[in-house]
């Protein structure tokens, strides 16, 4: 008979959960077909950008949109690098996005751990405050923020883009969730009893336990920071130290947009994000596999 492990839904033992059996849970061909359709819809605009980037601007006026790649890709990419300092922009975006991602993961995990597993006065109201802060629309404080940046003399520097984003409510939210799911009280008690301070407990117990969620969040944060456009456009100098999105807007300058040029840049801009995704995805999948082996 099958023995049913009756874990109540509210407590998830996390990584040692039994995973799918070898058979019986494979997705059928119908579902695979559905996934293919979804994937095609997701990928199409990227493919389309690539096609336009490999031709020239005039193809966009055709009645039937272009669907096959042309031969201008190298030329357009070269033009991208000639028009703006694209490699600098990529480097800057990389610095910004990585710093923001790592910082959010660490600080978010710290705060999330505190809200989830530590007991202190005002914990609930403080957390509610965190939730409240996330409802503030981003565009709200642009002018005062800009003036603050000029007072600090940070206009045109990467700090202006990095520092306000070092930790966000989303991260605290998410990591608190993760700690609730994956960090059991017993573990913490044990560590405390062993003499670990709060911080050491966090470092050695909580953080490893939430690695997959941290990886997911790190990746999302990286992506959001990479794609951020509105604020960097205001506070960064397109000719000095732009991020990729700002540089792309410089490519699109003018009354009319040279789409093939800009989309060549846009196609390039996607690559690092995909790379990071692949890099981090192992963490997510790897965590599952380890649990499965235990089963």
């Amino acid at each position: 008979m099958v023995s049913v492990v009756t874990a109540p839904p509210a407590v998830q033992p996390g990584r040692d959960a039994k995973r799918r059996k070898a058979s019986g849970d494979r997705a059928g061909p119908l579902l695979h077909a559905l996934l293919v359709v979804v994937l095609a819809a997701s990928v199409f605009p990227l493919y389309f950008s690539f096609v336009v980037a490999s031709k020239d601007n005039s193809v966009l006026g055709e009645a039937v949109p272009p669907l096959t790649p042309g031969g201008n890709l190298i030329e357009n990419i070269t033009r991208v690098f000639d028009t703006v300092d694209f490699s600098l922009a990529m480097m800057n975006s990389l610095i910004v996005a990585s710093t923001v991602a790592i910082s959010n993961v660490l600080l978010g995990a710290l705060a999330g751990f505190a809200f989830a597993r530590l007991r202190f006065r005002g914990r609930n109201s403080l957390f509610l405050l965190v939730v409240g802060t996330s409802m503030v629309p981003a565009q709200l404080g642009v002018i005062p923020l800009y003036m603050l940046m000029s007072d600090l003399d940070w206009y045109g520097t990467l700090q202006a883009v990095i520092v306000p984003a070092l930790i966000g409510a989303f991260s605290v939210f998410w990591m608190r969730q993760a700690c609730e799911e994956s960090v059991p009280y017993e573990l913490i008690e044990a560590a405390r009893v062993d003499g670990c301070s709060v911080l050491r407990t966090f470092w050695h117990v909580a953080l490893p336990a939430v690695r997959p969620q941290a990886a997911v969040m790190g990746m999302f944060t990286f992506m959001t920071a990479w794609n951020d456009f509105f604020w960097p456009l205001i506070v960064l100098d397109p000719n000095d130290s732009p991020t990729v999105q700002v540089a792309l807007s410089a490519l699109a300058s003018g009354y009319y947009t040279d789409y093939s040029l800009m989309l060549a840049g846009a196609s390039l801009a996607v690559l690092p994000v995909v790379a990071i995704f692949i890099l981090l995805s192992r963490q997510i999948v790897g965590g599952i596999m380890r649990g499965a082996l235990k089963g």
Partner: protein
Amino acid sequence: MSKSLAGRAATAVVAVLAVSSAAACGGGASGADSGKVKLSIGVFSDFGYDTLVKEYQAAHPTIEIEQRKVKMEQHHTQLATQLAGGRGAADIVAIEEGNVAQFRQSKDKFVNLADYGAKDLAGQWTPWKWNQGTADDGNFVLGLGTDMGSLALCYRRDLFEAAGLPVDREEVGKLWPTWQDYVATAQTFTDKTPNVKFVDTALNVYKAILDQAEEGYFAKADDSYIADKNTKVSDGFKLAAVLGEKKQTGAVAPFSQEWNVALKQASFATTTCPAWALALIKAGAGDEAAGKWDVAAAPGAGGNWGGSFLAVPKQGAHPKEAYELAKWLTAPEQQKRIFKETGNLPSEPVAYKDPEVTATVNDFFNKAPVGQIFAASAESLQPTYRGTKDSKVTPVFSNALARVEQGKQSTSDAFAQALKEAQDVAK
């Protein structure tokens, strides 16, 4: 295992912070070459400065120039933010004529170029262009004029031929001495070829009519709101709306992607075109349309759409050097060269009357003598007065006309609504 992830993460953070601070220090340091004056020019679209800037740098070894190009809408929004924040504006900024009135209100944030002797340059430009760039009765020089729009009417020869209309540009010009004639021609065209639209959008027609009037929404004398009383506004609106109601327009937003597609597919036959629009039409229509488009005189007289000024924000570190550069870039000789390269029409008589300019023909537009056509239009130019709140009122009427084009409202309803909204905004 846990240590390795955390350890690696920590190392990464430190490394990244180190690099970023290095980048910030290195990237932001414009003083890398000490002693060199670094000037930045904020422009949109193609001002034709690329070669000129290189030349100026060669002639002035202590000066380094960089251009910042952004999309026009972002440019002006950014400028407003930079002026508000007191930092970040380029040393020289371009301001389009439609936005000059509004930035004139913040002239205290700009250098009065008269302090550097700009008033002596007044004679270089046509009086109306010069005046557009000044305030306080000419005592405050806000910006030096770059190009001007002038106005003509571009049309497709093959579509006109199919509709039995004349094709030669002189003849075509004779078809429409007034805008009423233009609307009548639209009817003739549509009767013969009902599947093709006559004009890209009624908005351009309306804009051209207003641009030719001395006053539009605001009075020249005291900047008071007169849109509800000015017959030019109501007549112009209603005339353009006729085209919209009869579905003789393509109802596409000018210079948008849809407009490009419509150009390529040859779905409309005419459009109002200032000098700088020729390049855009060519880009949109593609090479296969070479020789099919042509340029004729516009209905009515004169009219100016576009053109910009170079201004110097006060927050810059080198106002004098900036002024000198702006002065040079807007000098007649340079304006001539810019025209040859980009087709931007010079705003100085010495330049646009120059035989080199008037002899220029545009191959794409069936070898039209664009230098002549636009210069002639410039001479008879009576620029319309743009009130300080013009940029707030214009979208109201544009939207109203668009609603008529889209069949959402009748002309009278749309106009009434526009008047009401404009009243609110102009307060």
